[in-house]
């Protein structure tokens, strides 16, 4: 367990998730870092673009590959005050997905708005 960070500095963090889940460990680790990071009382956003949008797909069933199904943990983010989940609309659309396919409520952003979102941040963590 991490102790609360007493430094008094608040920075804006964005976690950028660009890969499909399970093929690599990054999707799982991004979530882990966000949950641990919550103790530091920073301003946290998560952005899902490119294949990262598959991380939020409903009904993932990992039994037959014997993986932990961590996707349900996205539903716990709210309890950790991580409420800014951004998903790029074009990334969904190119993959034939819509908001109804996702397991949590998200805010859609357009491709042209991604730069503005990143311009507001102090730290970019890419997974």
């Amino acid at each position, binding site marked *: 367990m991490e102790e609360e960070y007493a430094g008094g500095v608040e920075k804006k963090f964005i976690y950028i998730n660009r890969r*499909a889940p399970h*093929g690599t460990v990054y999707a799982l680790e991004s979530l882990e870092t966000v949950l641990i990071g919550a103790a530091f009382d920073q301003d946290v956003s998560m952005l899902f673009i490119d294949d990262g949008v598959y991380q939020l797909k*409903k009904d*993932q069933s990992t039994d037959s590959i014997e993986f932990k199904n961590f996707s349900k943990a996205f539903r716990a983010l709210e309890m950790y005050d991580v409420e800014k989940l951004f998903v790029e609309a074009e990334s969904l659309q190119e*993959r*034939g997905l819509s908001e109804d396919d996702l397991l949590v409520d998200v805010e859609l952003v357009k491709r042209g708005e991604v730069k503005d979102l990143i311009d507001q941040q102090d730290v970019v963590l890419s997974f």
Partner: protein
Amino acid sequence: MSTLNIVNKSPFEKRSLDQCLSRIGSDDAVLLIEDAVVVAMAGTRYESDLKSAAAAKKLYVLTPDVEARGLADKPVVEGFTQVDYKGFVALVTEHDRVHSWL
């Protein structure tokens, strides 16, 4: 003489599927595993490319990897055959060699 080609990365991320398809023949097969399975589902930007490929070659997708990514509720692209790991093993035996496009 035919080859089982394995592709494991999403074509949204890597070009390996294209690179494979441009170099195989009509008697060859392609099996999508791991993150590559996302493109076997209907509705993506690549659907029509994959449909054309499936008309010329045998295309397979690994079901356990489809389920893991929550995509079992989507129809597969026309022409794709779903296999489990035992089906994967059978494909390996039915072709003369295996070529993983890493």
